[in-house]
């Protein structure tokens, strides 16, 4: 090669930008290298090694997510060595916990026993709660790996279900550390970290306390980045399967940040919320945006117009209600002038609706008495 800012991946010459890793260059070139622990925008940890690739001249396989790309590098991303290394990693992961998705293999002798044990841990006989939405399952399928031949280790730590929002299922944790990166480097809440050592390793909040008694603020960033079923929203776990829902992108209705979010809808009901990886929030949300959506389907919602008679409300038709409002406002405007009427528009409604309220106030009521409470 003459040009020095090029590298070769699977036979394709690709340009390198400063400070890029092999993974960055590959992704820009639409070459798919699988990753598990890698989390965009955070320090690479090299924890899972699923992204290893073969680099010509290197003695060992190198992790693409943390190896800097350099000119004239020649890389193969799916060589036999790479594939067998990935298979081994996946086999170990699958056998290390309650990964009871179907990829575990059908007629292994420990199957029934294993499933029974997991069902007991889960307190459910349904398959894994994130079945169909799991990077480990995807990769196991892609590389045709099952947990066959491994006994499987029983769960070392019990599930944590004592907080209202997040279930922590340590038996499905592959210790990739993405949640730790998300909590410490993305949200900077510094609530969780790696605890204990060796086979005992566990993701813990300070002092190995439950999240609810820690610095955790339930932003749910960790849930969103967990590649497997180790962190799942409490209300979603076993209640919502990804293929049952449709996602609608919209803007959060709480504070003024305007986070972009997906409402996951099933049967005309919002059942889950996740962050969109775009400006302004780049995937992040807070506890209100992510978990505070029950008001939408609350049975306390107003569903009919109400008119007060003798101090009590009665249900009314739209026609009645609109007639009454229009007659009263018209009467007051015509007798006392528009300036005797005021309109509180709202920082909660849309731009279009504010515009309409403003037009109505000025053009119909003929007053400028319009304001909103947002400064309060």
């Amino acid at each position: 090669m003459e040009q020095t800012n090029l590298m070769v991946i699977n036979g394709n010459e690709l340009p390198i930008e400063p400070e890029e890793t092999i993974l960055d260059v590959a992704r820009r070139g639409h070459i798919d290298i699988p990753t598990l622990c890698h989390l965009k925008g955070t320090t690479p940890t090299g924890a899972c090694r699923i992204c290893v690739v073969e680099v010509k001249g290197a003695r060992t396989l190198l992790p693409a997510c943390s190896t800097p790309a350099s000119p004239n590098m020649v890389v193969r991303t799916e060589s036999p060595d790479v594939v067998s290394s990935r298979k081994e990693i996946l086999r170990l992961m699958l056998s290390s916990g309650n990964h009871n998705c179907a990829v575990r293999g059908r007629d292994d002798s420990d199957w029934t026993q294993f499933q029974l044990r997991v069902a007991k841990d889960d307190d459910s006989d349904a398959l894994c709660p994130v079945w169909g939405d799991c990077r480990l399952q995807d990769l196991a399928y892609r590389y045709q790996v099952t947990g066959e031949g491994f006994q499987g280790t029983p769960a070392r730590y019990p599930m944590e279900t004592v907080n209202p929002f997040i279930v922590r299922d340590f038996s499905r944790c592959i210790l990739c550390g993405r949640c730790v990166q998300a909590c410490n480097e993305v949200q900077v809440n510094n609530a969780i970290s790696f605890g204990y050592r060796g086979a005992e390793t566990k993701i813990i909040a300070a002092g190995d306390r439950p999240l609810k008694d820690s610095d955790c603020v339930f932003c749910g960033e960790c849930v969103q980045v967990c590649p497997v079923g180790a962190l799942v929203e409490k209300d979603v776990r076993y209640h919502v399967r990804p293929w049952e829902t449709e996602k609608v992108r919209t803007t959060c209705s709480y504070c003024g940040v305007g986070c972009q979010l997906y409402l996951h809808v099933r049967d005309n009901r919002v059942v889950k919320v996740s962050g969109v990886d775009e400006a302004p929030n780049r995937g992040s949300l807070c506890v209100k945006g992510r978990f505070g959506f029950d008001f939408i389907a609350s049975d306390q919602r107003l569903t009919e117009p109400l008119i007060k008679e003798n101090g009590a409300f009665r249900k009314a038709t739209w026609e009645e209600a609109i007639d009454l409002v229009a007659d009263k406002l018209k009467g007051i405007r015509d007798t006392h002038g528009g300036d005797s009427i005021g309109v509180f528009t709202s920082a909660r409604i849309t731009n279009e609706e504010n515009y309409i309220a403003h037009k109505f106030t000025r053009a119909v009521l003929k007053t400028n008495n319009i304001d909103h409470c947002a400064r309060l």
Partner: protein
Amino acid sequence: MTNTIADIEEADVILITGSNTSENHPVISAFVKRAVTRRGAKLIVVDPRRIKMTEFAEHWIRPNLGTDVAWINGMMHVIIKEDLHDKTFVEDRTEKFDEMKAVVEKYTPEHVESITGIPAEKLIEAARLYAQAPAGSIVYCMGITQHTTGTDNVKSLANLAMLCGNLGIRGGGVNPLRGQNNVQGACDLGGLPNVLTGYQAVDNLDAIKKMERAWNVTGLPTKPGLTVTKMVPKAHSGEIKALYIIGENPLVSDPDLNHAKKCLSNLDFLVVQDIFLTETARMADVVLPSKCFAEKDGTFSNTERRVQRVRKAVDSPGLAKDDWKITCEIATRMGYSMSYKDSETIFNELASVTPSYAGISYPRIDHEGLHWPCPTPEHPGTPILHGAQFTRGKGMFHAIEWIAPAEVADDDYPMYLTTGRVLYHYHTGTMTMKTEGLNERVPESFVEITRGDAQGMGIEDGERVTIASRRGEIQARVRISRKAVDGTVFIPFHFAQAAANKLTNAALDPISGIPELKVCAVKLSKGA
């Protein structure tokens, strides 16, 4: 915000004041925390409470309540005296520097210390840090605006930013964080008594003519109207006879609630349009059910002036309707026909009469929102304001003297009360309190106090106490907290049962009409 949210991460120094960022704008707080922990930016927090953000700060500066103008003038005094200001910027881009300089002359660090309680050396260090930053960002929220001197506070922060040339650059700016999702949009689209959409003054006859033509009406009023905080008392005196309240719950969010309630009950006619039967809706003559954000199409404008899409995800319950449809039906029934096919049609109309929105359309913001001003369909939007020039040409310094808050602590009411929000709830709680988990985290109101103050009064953590001001009293549970500082208690205003706003002072900023929710005098007593 003059700058974008992402831009905060580019700042070298960030000055946060009057914003409990990690609880009220958690996602923005992550940008600040990342700037500090990952890029080495320095954070200055000026706040009466030891909020979470202080843990990330180089300096936590603790002013007495209601003394913001004093410390800001003090910082400017130091910066000018030490010749740290951006002379080129001041020369080329601003005016009235000398008037401002003359006023801040007497705000020596020692004088400022006597007003604010901030140690002189602390103020000097912070002033140097901010002034010497290549890019310094100022972030503020209601802790700055909800004062009788709120407008002065805001202008003072603008003074400080101009003095150091921190406007129109990446990582700089004066950045107010809006508390509610579409405050920006409500202000932009005419939800203010003195301006039409896009801040066109109601006495600007050209703008009025334009609207009259667009709307096909005559005789639009040109006299500025009343703010919320003026309309409420005028309901009491009878000058306001009817109110049409859309999606607001002033009976929890307004100051001096007991009085506000009396005012509203004096109305001839009250219509409330909302998604729940709020405290305010209960007082109405007619209640109109509306849709919530998940049931609507439209746009919101966020705190960085980015206009973003809202999309319908679910059907609305029962007979609830879009807020715009309800208003249009009332208008039509009153003899002025208003009808639109959908929210996009309305957007196109508002863009046609609002220069700063003129270039924005639904197709353009389908994937990513645009920052106004965006005057033409080709315009890329304006992420950073005041790039080469201020809207009014030159940036004007304001010479501002500090004025004491409307109410100060005395023998009868010896403690200060400040109010705000907590992470797990939002505004008057009508939305967040429908989620069990959020209630589990913060089930009820509380009064946050230091261990020392509590011990002095013989009060235990978790005990119920009565908090009284000149205007009313409430009961709440005591929460001894490291966030508190001696002499000042904090109560969140979310809870209707123990509404902090029964205590607060309705004294208004003469210009903005914003009440002094952040300072009043109270006393605590045992038992409830």
